């Protein structure tokens, strides 16, 4: 198994690497295009801000590389959001792999809605689809930290409620994205990472 984590200007790559290590997998962290192309599986993690991340990817031509990958790709958190069409976070066009748009939670809240932004903590994922969620019971808890969300749409394979129901995972062809952090989501997260590796 040749697993590559895409290196770019958004953090939490170490956490993903260590989580893979815990389940007995190893990965190479790189922005080398030929290494990314040769990988059996690609993980596109990220904690950070959408427009600066997109600018960084474009400057290095990684945007086109990621869009055209044929092997299974897993976007995590910001990585998933960047795989969507557009993000309201500084209004930036993203990779457009998923048709869904990324919106700001604050716009969805009402005056009497006391929920805080960002959402920080454990929340349920439900209506789970695809083998990414093999052996993951509907309603399982995963760990989230985010202020922006992908709207529900044709590519939704998991839903979570915070202020409103949104896409906590997306899937199209060889591309998967999860809004939560599987690398920090206890046994459930490790099962999802294992499922991705064995896709």
């Amino acid at each position, binding site marked *: 198994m040749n697993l590559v984590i895409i290196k770019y200007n958004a*953090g*939490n790559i*170490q*956490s993903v690497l*260590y*989580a893979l*290590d*815990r389940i007995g997998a190893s990965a190479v962290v790189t922005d080398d295009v030929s290494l990314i192309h040769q990988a059996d599986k690609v993980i596109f993690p990220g*904690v*950070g*801000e959408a427009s600066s991340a997109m600018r960084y990817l474009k400057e290095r031509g990684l945007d086109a590389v990621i869009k055209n990958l044929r092997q299974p790709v897993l976007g995590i958190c910001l990585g998933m959001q960047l795989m969507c069409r557009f993000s309201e976070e500084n209004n930036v066009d993203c990779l457009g792999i998923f048709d869904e748009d990324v919106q700001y939670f604050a716009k969805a809240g009402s005056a009497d809605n*006391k*929920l*805080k*932004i*960002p*959402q*920080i*903590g*454990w*929340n*349920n994922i439900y209506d789970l689809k695809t083998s990414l969620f093999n052996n993951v019971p509907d309603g399982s*808890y995963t*760990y*989230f*930290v985010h202020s922006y969300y992908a709207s529900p749409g044709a590519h939704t394979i998991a839903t979570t*409620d*915070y202020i409103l129901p949104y896409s906590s995972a997306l899937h199209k062809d060889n591309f998967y994205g999860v809004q939560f*952090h599987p*690398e*920090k*989501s*206890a*046994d459930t*997260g*490790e099962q999802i990472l294992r499922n991705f590796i064995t896709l």
Partner: protein
Amino acid sequence: MLTKRIIPCLDIKDGRTVKGTNFVNLRDAGDPVELGALYARQGADELVFLDITATVEKRKTLSELANRISHHINIPFTVGGGIGSVQDVNILLENGADKISVNTAAYKNPRLINDLAKEFGSQCVVLAIDTRKEEDGEWYVYLNGGRTKTATKCTDWARQAVDLGAGEILLTSMNHDGTKQGFALDITCTLSTGLPVPVIASGGGGTMEHFVTVFNEGKADAALAASIFHFKEIAIPHLKEYLSSQSIAVRL
């Protein structure tokens, strides 16, 4: 539904857990990684590691510890204790810490909060406040582990810190800490309802009912405790089942 979080806190000195523990089933109760892993298996939602080491070797010890924790523990964790610079934080995050907490250094140099939020994002910047209610009925900020009083009101400092980019508040009531008589409900509720960020209540948790109250009346987003978990006075699975039976959303 987003759940309330239960957070055990481990005090660390020279890389070892202090304040004692009562876990006979651990090979080494002083090893923070082993104790943290046990809490993770029991259903803790996050962990906080507070370093109280005062030596020059501290920075290296703490980053090595963060590295070991993130290799072995599959839930989020915060590292705090004497963090005073962007560089300190960078090393800890590179070694796998999810969040860091700042206290005295941020009070003395509030720009630090802004610098950290810009560099790493608000989601990893936890502001820890030690506060005490004085005879005038106001809550004041204390520094240096509670040894130094300031004239700043807790609510003012918390508001300023959030404006600067703090993503979460870890609020410890010195009046309640160690008493096991319950959390400080008034100041917890004031901050939690008045600020747009989550508030972790700390200090005073002694019974399972105290946790119910701090969530229902204190409106806390999370509750932190140390010795009651270390000495097995309250077991985390039992606590979470009880909270669930009281209609509080928890991860079971």
